[in-house]
């Protein structure tokens, strides 16, 4: 069986062209598409103190719902395009989690978007992309965002 293609999305417009490419490649390779998003745990701080455990749990749950909803949406679009797809919601340091997920699933390729060449956003997403490219054990396809 062919190995899956892993697409990591931050749900921004920078990830959109990468998502399209991931679908095209999954189709061409008849590969399953694993669509992943990494939630970065927030610090449990509010104003000048720690937030209550209950509030922290609530916020975490909200973040997970947000991530899962958006992932499910992408999965639906991939399936609509005729690609076998599934969602994978992860938590932690984005580049690290994506690389590990690709490794444990023996992904054939990681497909990620990079921002264009403007401003802070490029630096941030660019650094995640860089982290993925320099640590991944499989080929990484980078697609410039719009």
């Amino acid at each position, binding site marked *: 069986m062919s190995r899956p293609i892993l697409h990591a999305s931050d749900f921004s417009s920078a990830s959109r062209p990468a998502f399209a490419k991931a679908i095209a490649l999954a189709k061409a390779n008849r590969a399953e598409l694993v669509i992943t998003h990494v939630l970065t745990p927030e610090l449990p701080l509010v104003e000048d103190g720690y937030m209550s455990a209950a509030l922290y749990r609530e916020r975490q749950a909200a973040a997970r719902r947000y991530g899962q909803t958006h992932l499910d949406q992408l999965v639906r679009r991939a399936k609509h395009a005729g690609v076998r797809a599934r969602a994978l919601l992860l*938590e932690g340091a984005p580049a690290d989690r994506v690389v590990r997920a690709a490794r444990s699933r023996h992904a054939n390729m990681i497909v990620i978007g990079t921002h264009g060449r403007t401003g802070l956003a490029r630096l941030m997403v660019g650094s995640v992309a860089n982290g993925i*490219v320099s640590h991944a*054990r499989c*080929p990484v396809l980078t697609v*410039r965002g719009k």
Partner: protein
Amino acid sequence: MPDGSRDRPPRIILATDFSSEAEAAEAEAVRLSRALNAELILVHVAVESPPYGDTAEGGRQLERVYADEARWAESQLAERARRLASQGVPTGWRRRVGVPHEQIVKAAQDEHAAYIVIGSHGRGRAGRFLLGSVAERVARTAACPVVIVRPGDTAASRRPTPRAAPRHRAQGVRR
């Protein structure tokens, strides 16, 4: 999207400097070409500094060195292209002169390439932070998608790692 939407087969640029990194990238480029029914174009970029501030004889010597390099590179490119074509992947080649990442991106533009495939050196564990600067610059400036391949990446050399990834506190929510 460029792949497959036009009559002409899509083109894939494989940037090569004939290193082992480039060999790993070649395997991936072949796989991609087959999957997309694409044409492969090998691109090699020679860096030539102008022979300024030199004696006339020195300048002529440098020109001879560059001419030798060009002949060698062209024979290498032609040989690889023939070998790949014999494996069923239609392959052409171009030799360009200039700044490598700029020329690779320009070649992709000129050929209306759907993808660029490029190798990047892996430098052991600590060095994994250092991405090849040419590959990084290509990924940053190319308009088309870029596949970055590091040695040991190819399907043929990949095998399942027996060691499970260490579990972290921040274990993901898996569904």
